């Protein structure tokens, strides 16, 4: 579903109405026929430390568990997932032995796809993006940071297929628009382990048919481009920003939202987030939600919202949304998104104890929360 958002926002909004269809009917209140207000959304949360996908629903102003969490394999260490209809996908890095994990909500089945060649375990896939072809086949696009390539993989196929090689130093996301692949290259030094910029990040343009490169857009002045969404001809890129030297590695607070026009091959505008960008999620209300750091370390965050229609911040760096917990204290969210009516959903990353999924008003006031797994890093609402 999120891929649909990335491909065409209108389609996404339409699909966003399809809620609860994949919820396990055996789960508590999972069929939406329980007492009280109807279920308005299903929320999926990826938990990197507990290696699970939590399945929850929004009912009125409350959050409920929809079904038992999906248990991911022990080698799982991913930070992002994508969902399309009944299929979910996530990835495992080189440290876990590079793999792509597919799963079915309906059957609970999971399938592992590896990367070809002797060095396939070192491919190091980044954030996956599910795609669907005209024949109804679901597959996923991933960029790989180990061998700097783009692959496509299909559930049930043991090995991913190489689409393009030498696509950049640190590819964080690959998106397809019609017959074009957009490769978001953060251009960081992963081989040396410093993760410092090697140059400007870039958007590489490749033909889907044969993987050939035909152009690129340099994101001049941005640092660490780590996620992107497609808005018609435009591409919205979150450049998370850099960090300072040891030992503090303080955030440089130089994150940006960069809008580039793929047709013109140029950057249209860059909006400073006045912090380091952590995550960018599309909301069901058509806004984009960006979590950013708020201080001199990576310890606290707030949320910005971006209006797709106006290409401007609805709640910008000077007027951020401050998520709050039940006691009114600041809630440091890893990622946030919204329901159709603008209410927020945000996840907190926690280790040792469970993270939380919080339901908030559009202004960040607390409505409800529910425990999810440890290390919550991604959420999808549908």
């Amino acid at each position: 579903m999120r891929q649909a958002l990335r491909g065409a926002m209108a389609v996404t909004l339409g699909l966003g109405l399809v809620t609860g269809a994949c919820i396990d009917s055996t789960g508590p209140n999972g069929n939406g026929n329980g007492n009280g207000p109807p279920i308005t959304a299903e929320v999926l949360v990826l938990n990197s430390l507990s290696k699970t996908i939590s399945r929850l629903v929004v009912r009125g102003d409350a959050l409920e568990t929809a079904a038992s969490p999906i248990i991911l394999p022990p080698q799982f260490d991913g930070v992002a997932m994508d969902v399309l209809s009944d299929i979910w996908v996530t990835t495992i890095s080189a440290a876990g032995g590079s793999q792509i994990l597919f799963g079915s909500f309906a059957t609970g089945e999971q399938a592992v796809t590896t990367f070809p060649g002797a060095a396939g375990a070192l491919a190091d896939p980044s954030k996956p993006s599910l795609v669907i072809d005209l024949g109804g086949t679901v597959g996923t696009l991933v960029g790989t940071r180990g061998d700097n390539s783009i692959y496509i993989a299909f559930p049930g196929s043991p090995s991913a297929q190489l689409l393009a090689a030498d696509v950049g130093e640190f590819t964080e996301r690959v998106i397809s628009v019609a017959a074009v692949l957009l490769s978001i290259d953060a251009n960081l030094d992963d081989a040396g382990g410093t993760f410092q910029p090697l140059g400007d990040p870039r958007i590489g343009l490749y033909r889907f048919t044969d993987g050939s490169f035909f152009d690129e857009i340099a994101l001049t002045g941005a640092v660490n481009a780590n996620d992107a969404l497609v808005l018609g001809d435009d591409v919205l890129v979150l450049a998370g920003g850099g960090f300072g030297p040891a030992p503090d590695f303080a955030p440089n607070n130089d994150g940006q939202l960069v809008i580039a026009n793929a047709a013109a091959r140029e950057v249209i505008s860059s909006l400073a987030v006045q912090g380091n960008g952590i995550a960018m999620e599309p909301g069901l209300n058509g806004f984009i939600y960006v979590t950013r750091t708020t201080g001199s370390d990576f310890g606290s965050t707030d949320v910005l919202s971006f209006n797709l229609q106006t290409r401007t911040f609805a709640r910008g760096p000077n007027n951020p949304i401050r998520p709050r917990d039940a006691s009114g204290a600041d809630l440091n969210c890893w990622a946030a998104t919204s329901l159709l009516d603008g209410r927020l959903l945000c996840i907190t990353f926690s280790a040792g104890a469970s993270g939380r999924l919080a339901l908030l008003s559009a202004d960040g006031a607390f409505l409800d929360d529910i425990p999810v797994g440890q290390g919550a890093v991604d959420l999808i609402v549908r």
Partner: protein
Amino acid sequence: MVRREQGARAIGAGGRNGIAALAGIWLTVVPVGALAQDVTRAIDPRAGRDGAERVSFPVELHVRVWAGEGDAARPFPGARVWLTRTGHRTDGTGSIPVAEAGKSGTYSTAVEVGGVYDLHTSAMGFAPVTRRVRVGDAGGIASNELDVYLSPAPVPVEEILTRVEAERAAQLRGHTLHHIELGERAPPSTTLAEWLAGLPGLELRRRGEGGPQMVTIRGSRPEAVLVLLDGMPVNDPLTGAADLSGIPTSSLESATVVLGAEAGSGSGASAGVLALRTRSTARGTSVGLTAGSFGHLAADLSSGTSGRVGSLSIGARLQRAQNDYSFENRVWPGQPSEKRENADRRDAHVTIAAQLESLPVSALGRVDAVERGSPGRMGTRLFDEARWREVTGQFSLSAGTEGGSGVTAGYTHRRQWYTDRRLDREESLSARQIRVQGRWRPSVSSSWLLAGYAANESVGGATLDRPNGRWMAGLSASRAFGPPTLEVTPSLAADMAGGDAMLSPALSIGSRFGEGWRVWGRAAQAYRIPTFADLYLASSYQVRPNRDLLPERVRLDAELGVEWSPGRLRARSSAFYRQTTDPIVWLPSSTAVWSARNAGRLTALGVELGLELLPAVGWEIDLAGTWTRSRVRFETERTALPYQPEWSGGVALERVSGPRRALVRLRYTGPRVTSLAATHELPAYALVDVAGRQTIHIGRVDLEIELGIRNLLDARHELVELFPEPGRQLSFRIGFQTPPRSGLPSDRRAGNMDLDGSSVDHVGRAPDAEVPAAPPGGDPSDIPLS
């Protein structure tokens, strides 16, 4: 010489029970050595000419020990009395304790038909006595008494120190203790950590064969176990955990495990102390070659010599292993069978020990070097070229006094290198520590003990913020109170470390009553200061140092134990509880930036059970079981401590028959969760190890042949998730050993002073190197606490 026919009256002046009419059963006592002859004569002036003294059997043997001679003789409590079966090697096998019954100077045990024993009696300030006891082969029941008269004799200083240390061990009676005379006990290729993991309350942690090996105690984390090698900490200054894989058992004399917090040892003894002692008393010259599965090859050498000035012993070991064992890659589609790669390692170890003859001064040096691969978990190739190298040099000098006081000064220098050619990465780290520790007892009989230490440690390396050092110092005092049957020992340790001051009180109570019953209890506090990595590590942008960390505190470490040892059975059980507040835990922040934090609370409680049974001569059965419930509390959530099984246990069956020894050991480890989230669990597993040894005497040389099979049933398992352990492993060792010569160096070290400024080593060691060490109960044995 003495002979007493069966049915005669009880032997000696102290006899009290008749041994009448026990046809065909007789026990013969043959004095050995001049002292023994004198004693024997003193026992029974009606001794026969052939030196054989016959009494009835099966025998509940009572030994009354007297100090002095004639009318001046008085019952002597506090002596050590034990039996050994003759013809056995001096490795402690076949040792049968003769337990003291009350404080009357009477000791008792049971002996079997068909054996020949040496009855050993020793006490500080008296000449040791050894008598040969021969048991006949007919039936009958009797209760016999033997009297042993001890004559005052000059005692070497080291024995005084030994005795004092034993008394100090008794002061630690609030703890459960395990003492292992390693020597020849461990089967070939069994590592120290593997061997220790068979003890109740201890668990092994490692990431497959060839990597670091650590132990935990009573549901702790590895960094809560302080490991001391000859008094110097082994714990890694970065991680706080001690890697035992680089310390071969062949280089060690003994290992003593103190279960429970022991603040007198300084920082890090939150869950217990493992005190290791380098072998310094080579028994002749020994050379051995070992070969085993997965490319395991080893050569070891030890030798000792002595003269008027003193003694010198050396030991060396070279070993290598490929560790290219196969495993099922369960994270890959189809679960293919693969071979472990980059798990090879090479080790080199050298030890040198010297002791002066005229003074209780000893020096010890050792170098341990390891070069190994550092493979990742199954499925990844990311670490296939990652290598780890570590060289540690250690030197210590010890001196003791007759009163039980002593001082040890030590210096350790450690260098570590981590390289990864694939990433063109090389990091190094160096750590130094100087430590001076001492103890002082006002007199040999004093119930007071004062101990202290001062240490400086420094660490420098590329991954640290800057080179850092710190001073640590501590003082502890303890005193035992109470009547002989009930001893109460309060103690207090005060420490300054890294700018923090800590007070750690402790109270222990011990009591003996009835026939072979003993109970003990203890409540104590302890602490652990942050490691250098906790404070200064800044290896990447995802890792932050935290210089504001506080020491973690063990608010309460309590234990209640009971032991029952009627003759050939010893059963022991302990219940424990430990609560640690402000534990230092590495956790990611809300934005996944890792740093050490004082967070949550750790609790562990459990019950240990140990059973040692000597069903027949030459047979020994050990049973051990542990139930542990170890929990981590963060905020309002409580989860199981990763990798800590609730249930574990084992059984060992050992048979010693003359020059042959066989051992079968079964170990069971229950399911363990693998993370704080507890979403994954490793299944239970059971391992069976077998080992055998045959000694062949060829002239003055002993040829030793050993065969061992680890994991006989080829059980595939993981100790740490996705790090496969090897299946069945064979090992074979052939060795030559010359017999010990007169005047062999005995261990005169003043004690490594690693336990509250004192040592429990030497406890149970016979004064004669040829006499088996005496800790009862066999393998692994516990330190006798009286």
